[in-house]
């Protein structure tokens, strides 16, 4: 009771009785990784555990020889007296919540998660616990996601409208997870190959190897340099916006797929022609539902924007506090 089961240190979230860290940001011996995004999976750890479907992604990020061990969803693993198991988080391929049980007490770390349907990964599973450490990326009630299949339809319609005008449709999206989710959704609409930025090729191949069905893709690097991509849908990470790479697509319309596109000010300020509200994180109803489903008596929120969520939970008589972590600094 006096020492919490998980505690925040300058290296990351630490479990003293089990002597392991969850998504540490500085060198540690034993690291349990929720998923393969750069702000959660960092290199240099002694040993890694992650959900089995996420192993290839983690290896790609860390290098082929990294000591990564896969755990099947739900498979218990003992860390000394502590039992750890991983459960689907629905965020990206291989993403997991971490369940930590010790001395009759259960803590769950959600990592990044969402409740919406996503054909590229196992759906979120609710795990009862005493203490829930939840992400809070979009923890304001203005974030209520539209039906993702509707958003995919909007993306397809936009692509077709650009094509009708003889333009390229250049869609910026996070390279791991969001891109593949869009490619999988578009498989229902078209078999015309989508052009991929180099940063997305290897990651997309890993999804194909995992059996995720997606629209055909072809690398931008395989196209003639003079081809400005008229009529094509081109996917690229946001970091490519405004770069020399993007300049070749003359007359392209630009789009951005992100939960942040929900807000007009952000949408207009980012300077893209269109915004699509598509997120791999939980929206406000998703966060509240997850907290309620867990039955947790105490909730700790990570990822910065926690003021509204904490006020809401306190109003509901749930003990809640913020945890300062550096997560969410990479993802748009």
């Amino acid at each position, binding site marked *: 009771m006096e020492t919490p089961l998980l505690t925040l240190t300058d290296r990351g979230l630490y479990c003293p009785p089990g002597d392991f860290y969850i998504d540490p940001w500085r060198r540690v011996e034993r690291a349990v990784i929720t998923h393969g995004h750069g702000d959660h999976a960092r290199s240099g750890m002694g040993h890694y555990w992650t959900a089995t479907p996420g192993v290839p992604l983690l290896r790609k990020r860390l290098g082929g020889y990294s000591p990564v061990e896969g755990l099947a969803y739900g498979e218990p693993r003992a860390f000394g007296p502590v039992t750890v198991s991983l459960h689907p988080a629905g965020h990206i391929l291989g993403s997991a919540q971490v369940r930590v049980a010790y001395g009759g007490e259960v803590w769950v770390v959600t990592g990044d998660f969402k409740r919406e349907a996503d054909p590229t990964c196992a759906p979120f599973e609710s795990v009862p616990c005493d203490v829930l450490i939840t992400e809070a990326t979009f923890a304001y*009630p203005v974030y209520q996601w539209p039906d993702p299949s509707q958003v995919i339809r909007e993306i397809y319609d936009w692509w077709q409208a650009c094509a009708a005008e003889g333009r390229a449709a250049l869609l910026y999206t996070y390279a791991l997870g969001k891109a593949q989710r869009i490619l999988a959704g578009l498989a229902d609409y078209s078999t015309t190959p989508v052009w991929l930025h180099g940063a997305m090729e290897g990651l997309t191949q890993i999804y194909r190897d995992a059996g995720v069905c997606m629209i055909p893709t072809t690398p931008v690097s395989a196209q003639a340099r003079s081809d400005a991509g008229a009529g094509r849908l081109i996917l690229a990470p946001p970091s490519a916006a405004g770069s020399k790479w993007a300049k070749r697509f003359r007359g392209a319309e630009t789009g951005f797929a992100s939960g942040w596109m929900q807000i007009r000010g952000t949408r*207009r300020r980012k300077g893209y*022609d269109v915004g699509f509200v598509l997120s791999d994180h939980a929206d406000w109803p998703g966060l509240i539902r997850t907290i309620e489903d867990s039955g947790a008596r105490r909730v700790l929120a990570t990822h910065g*924007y926690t003021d509204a969520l904490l*006020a809401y939970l306190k109003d509901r008589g749930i003990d809640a506090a913020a945890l300062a972590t550096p997560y969410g600094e990479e993802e748009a």
Partner: protein
Amino acid sequence: MNAFAALLSKLEQVRSTRRKLALLRAYFTAAPSGDAAWALHLLTGRRPRRVVSGPELRRWLGEATGLPAEVIEATYAHVGDLAETVALVLGSEKTAHAPAQEGLQSLLEDLIEPLRGAPAPVRQATISALWARYPRQTRLWLNKLLTGGLRVGVGEGLTLRALGEAFGLDPDVLQHRWMTPSPPSAAAFRALVDPQGATLSWAAPYPFCLAQGLKSEALPEDPEALLAEWKWDGVRCQLVRREGQTALWSRGRERLEDRFPELLESAQALDDGTVLDGELLVWEGDHPGSFADLARRLQRKRATPALLRSLPCRFLAYDLLELDGIDLRARPLSTRRARLEALLANAVGTLHLSPALHATSWPALRTLRQGARAQGAEGLMLKRRSAPYAQGRKSDCWWKWKLDPETVDAILLYAQPGHGRRANLYTDFTFAVWDGANLVPLAKAYSGLDEPTLERLDRWIRKNTTERFGPVRAVTPTLVFELAFDSAHAAPRRKAGLALRFPRIHRWREDLAAEDADQLALVKARVLPHG
């Protein structure tokens, strides 16, 4: 309402003029005349006064959703736009709503207008029902209408251009008809766009000729071909005398004659069929008064005798658009000016001639311009003598050549989020200068910084907030900015004792520390007019 809301959302998303025009054309062509009339009214910047306050909206949102006030406040602070916060928090279209049938006109006239002055429970019931009936996109613009906060990023010019294109009208003809406003109605809209032509009222003014800014490095032509005048800091007006009546129009299509009985009286001496273009100014002895004084006259719908005595006004005419009922706009300025000078060789009561200035070279013009402040003017106007009276700003007929602005180094004190594109970004700032060891607020400014700088400043503000008052944040007073402004005048009711005209941010002085900012006493000595 859904169609109008869709138009506003799309207008916000497209950037090219061509696409904006296409969207506006499509709307005007498809909309029923009554809806189009209101849309035109709103798109050209006229806003109905609010029927609901911000705090009411937040409270009703809390009651509609069961969310605690603290959650709503935090969310509003995150979004920076209350209408949008309410529209989004109420939930997505997943919660089914009944089909919404109201057109824009019916919504505004039948549902919203009766709410004016209605008790809170009545307004809450109607507004909550509207919220439930409309999807999120429509709710956003509906809330903007309710709070009086609707701003659309298309100007009057673009809207009228689209309207002209949609109905195949000559833009000059449409502009001329447009100058006489009428309350939005289906009949008025049909008259405005009637291809057969409409009868204009006796009071109808002409579209104003507007000046372009003169870049001193790109001087237009031989100074001998130009007429120079003082650029007055008053209100641009047209004085129309027809059928024994007088109308005084501002550029914003407002009738002002009732506020200026001294002009009405003088105008009786003019013949029917006379239209003057000129500047309305407060006049003290041989000098124009400040714009602030003129604003005091403008605020009063009917001037009191005391106000008429203390702030007498004058109309300085610089163009003649109609004489003996004949439209002179196609004649060259030299001809119009000669007739104007003949008409007003001797002042007619409060109607005076704005003097023509004599300079035969650019150096001489520059010298003249330097003397503008001593004349109570903002700079020079240069007008091509051979030019007709053109419509709008498109022509190269008139140029304004303002004095270089004054500047002051001031400290950032408060920040407030912007609107529209800049909602949830801190863009509206209050700046202070030193009064001894204390800081006194001097001016508000919200333009002049580029987007990356604004974003950087936004992050700094969030990290250096000392106090919050609603959407306003007080920050640690350490950042210094150079503010530019056109002029200053004494303002006894302000803490600083002076007010700046058109303050804007020139640059972020990252090289200066707070103690390097200006002292109030020195600012006053430098910028306040003497005597």
